[in-house]
C-alpha cells in the first residue's frame, strides 16, 4: 500500500459515517456488518474495536483477511481497504483511547458497565482502493485560520486578573476568535465525585450549578480519564447507544429531578468535544464544546481547543495560588439599619443536603448551599452586608476543601444562579476578594432539620 494512502484519507477514520466490514468463514460464507469506527494507527495499520465475540471475530480466527469500506464524510468518496488481521490488544494507550470514546457514548445513553471494550483488533493494510471518483463535487471547507484565533484568545486570557473574568473571557473568545459558539465550563467538586457548572456560553440559560457525575456521559468520562472525548456524529453515536439499550430491559426509573439544575444543551447537538482542565496531574474541571454542525470537531479543533483548555487551567491554578494576596482586613461590619421592606421572602434550608429554597423555589445545594446559608444567616442575624473571600475560606463550619480555586468558583456559580432565578438576593462584587450581599425583600430564614 502507498505510504501516504491512509494519511490522505484521514477524515474517513473520524467515525462520521459508519464503515462496513466483510469477513469470510472457512466454509466460504461471507459475513457483513457495520462498524462504529476504524482507527488509523500508522501508514500500514488500522485498529477496529470489538465489544462482542461475534461472527467477524470467529471468522478472522480462521481466515484473517477482511475487507473494510470507509467513507470520506465531506465528499462521499468510498475506499476499500484489504486488511489482514494480526493481533488483539487489551491494554495500552490505544486501547485506553478507544475505551474512553466508547464508554462516553455508552454512558451518555445510560449503558455504562454493560458494553465494555474487549479489545482492539490490529490489522495490516494490504490494499487501499478508491471505489470510484465522485459524481457530485462540492467546494471543500478550508481549515479555519486557527493559529491567529488561538493567539487572540491567549492574549485576551493573559489580561484577566480574576476567575470570573477569566472564564467569561475564555468562553466568549472561543466563540469570537475560534468559532466555537456553544460551551460549558465545569469544575470538579471536593470529594471528586461530581462536576458543577460555573459558566456556559451560547445557551438561553447558564445552567450555573448544574451537576454531572464524574464518569457519567461525555463530560464525566473526560474528567474521569483526564482525556479529551470527541464525538463527531452525536446523533449517530446516540442512535447506536439507544439501539444497544433497547436490547436490554429498561429498569431505570426517572430520577427525582426536583433538586437538579439541568445543564443547558443544544436541541440538535451533532458534535461534541469535552476537554479536561489539568493542573499538574489532576483534573480540576472540564471545558465542553457543542456544535449543531456535524463533524465540527476534527483533530485540528481538538488541538486548538486543548491549547485553550491547558492555558485556562494554568491560569486558574495561578489565580488560586495568588489568593493569599487577597485583602485580610475584615470589612467594615456595617450593622446598617435597613429600610423597612414590605415584601418578604422565605428562605428555607434543608440540612440533609444543604439545599436552599427561596419562596419554595429550589436554588442550590451542597457546598454552594452552605455558603449561601451562612451569608444569609449573618445578613439577617448580624445585619452584615460586606464579606471577604478570606473569611469564608477560614470558616470551619463551611467545611471547604483546601483546594483554593473552589471558593471563588462557588461564588461565581452562586452569583449567576441567583441572577438567573431573578432571586431577591444578590451577591455583588465590591472589590478584589470581597463582595456585598443585597436583598430586595425582607428575608425570613427557616431551617429544616434532617
Amino acid at each position, binding site marked *: 500500500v502507498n505510504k501516504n494512502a491512509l494519511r490522505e484519507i484521514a477524515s474517513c477514520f473520524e467515525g462520521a459515517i*459508519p464503515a462496513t466490514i466483510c469477513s469470510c468463514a472457512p466454509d466460504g460464507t461471507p459475513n*457483513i*456488518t*457495520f462498524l462504529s469506527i476504524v482507527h488509523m494507527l500508522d501508514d500500514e495499520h488500522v485498529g477496529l474495536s470489538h465489544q462482542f465475540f461475534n461472527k467477524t471475530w470467529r471468522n478472522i480466527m480462521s481466515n484473517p483477511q477482511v475487507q473494510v469500506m470507509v*467513507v470520506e*464524510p465531506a465528499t462521499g468518496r468510498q475506499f476499500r481497504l484489504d486488511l489482514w488481521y494480526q493481533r488483539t490488544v487489551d491494554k495500552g494507550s490505544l486501547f485506553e483511547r478507544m475505551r474512553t470514546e466508547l464508554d462516553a457514548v455508552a454512558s451518555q445513553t445510560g449503558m455504562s458497565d454493560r458494553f465494555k471494550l474487549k479489545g482492539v483488533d490490529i490489522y495490516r493494510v494490504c490494499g487501499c482502493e478508491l*471505489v470510484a471518483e465522485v459524481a457530485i463535487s462540492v467546494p471543500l471547507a478550508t481549515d479555519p485560520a486557527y493559529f491567529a484565533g488561538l493567539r487572540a484568545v491567549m492574549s485576551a486570557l493573559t489580561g484577566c486578573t480574576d476567575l470570573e473574568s477569566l472564564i467569561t473571557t475564555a468562553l466568549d473568545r472561543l466563540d469570537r476568535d475560534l468559532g466555537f459558539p456553544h460551551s460549558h465550563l465545569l469544575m470538579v467538586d471536593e470529594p471528586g465525585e461530581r462536576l458543577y457548572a460555573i459558566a456556559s456560553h451560547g445557551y438561553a440559560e447558564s445552567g450555573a450549578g448544574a451537576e454531572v457525575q464524574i464518569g457519567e456521559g461525555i463530560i464525566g468520562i473526560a474528567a474521569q480519564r483526564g482525556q479529551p472525548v470527541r464525538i463527531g456524529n452525536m446523533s449517530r453515536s446516540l442512535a447506536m447507544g439507544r439501539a444497544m439499550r433497547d*436490547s436490554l430491559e429498561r429498569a431505570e426509573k426517572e430520577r427525582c429531578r426536583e433538586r437538579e439544575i439541568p445543564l443547558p444543551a443544544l436541541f440538535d447537538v451533532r458534535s461534541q468535544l469535552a476537554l479536561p482542565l489539568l493542573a499538574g496531574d489532576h483534573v480540576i474541571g472540564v471545558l465542553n464544546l457543542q456544535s449543531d454542525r456535524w463533524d465540527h470537531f476534527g483533530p485540528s479543533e481538538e488541538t486548538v481547543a486543548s491549547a485553550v483548555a491547558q492555558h485556562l487551567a494554568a491560569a486558574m491554578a495561578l489565580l488560586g495560588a495568588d489568593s493569599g494576596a487577597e485583602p485580610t482586613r475584615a470589612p467594615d461590619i456595617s450593622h446598617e439599619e435597613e429600610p423597612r421592606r414590605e415584601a418578604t421572602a422565605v428562605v428555607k434550608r434543608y440540612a440533609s443536603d444543604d439545599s436552599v429554597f427561596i419562596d419554595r423555589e429550589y436554588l442550590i445545594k451542597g457546598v454552594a448551599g452552605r455558603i449561601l446559608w451562612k451569608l444569609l444567616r449573618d445578613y439577617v442575624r448580624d445585619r452584615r452586608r460586606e464579606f471577604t473571600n478570606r473569611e469564608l475560606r477560614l470558616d470551619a463550619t463551611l467545611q471547604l476543601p483546601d483546594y483554593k480555586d473552589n471558593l471563588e468558583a462557588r461564588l461565581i456559580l452562586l452569583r449567576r444562579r441567583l441572577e438567573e432565578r431573578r432571586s431577591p438576593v444578590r451577591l455583588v462584587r465590591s472589590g478584589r476578594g470581597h463582595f456585598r450581599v443585597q436583598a430586595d425583600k425582607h428575608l425570613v430564614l427557616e431551617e429544616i432539620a434532617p
Partner: protein
Amino acid sequence: MGTFLADADLTAFLQSGVAIVVGTRDRRLAPAIARAWGGRVGDDRKTVEVFVAQSHAGRALDNLRENGCIAVNFCLPLTYRSVQLKGRCTSIGEVSESDSVWIERHLDTFVAIAGQIGIPPHVIRNLAGLNFVRVAFQVDEMFDQTPGIGAGKPM
C-alpha cells in the same frame, strides 16, 4: 435452510430507507464489499433483490457470478436496527425502467433519513454510483444484527 419467508414487518423494513451493503468473497475466500440500493422482497417471499452500481462494484459482481455466495446487511441509520441475510445469488440482470424508479425512490428516502443525522445529500448521491444491475438472491439464513447483546443471533 429453505425455511425463510419474509413477513410483512420484515418486508417493510427491507424496503424502507435502510443502508444496504453486500458481502462477497473470491475463490481464495478474500472478501469484497459493494453498496446496494432498492431492496425488494420477491413475490415468493423467499428471494430478495438489491441493485448494485457497476461503477462502484469492484470485485463483488465477479465474485457473485463465480460462486454466488452472498451476505447482505440492511441497517436503518436512525435506530440501528440491522438485519443480515445470507444465501446464494440466483441471477444478475439488467434493470428495467420501473426498477430505476424503484432505486430512485429508495435513494430519495435514504437521502432524507441520512439528512436527519446530518449527512448532506451530495454525499449520499456520491455513494450510489451509476449503471445498476439487479442482483437476486435466495435467502438461507437471517440474523439480527442490531448492536447489543442479541447481535448476530439467527432469526
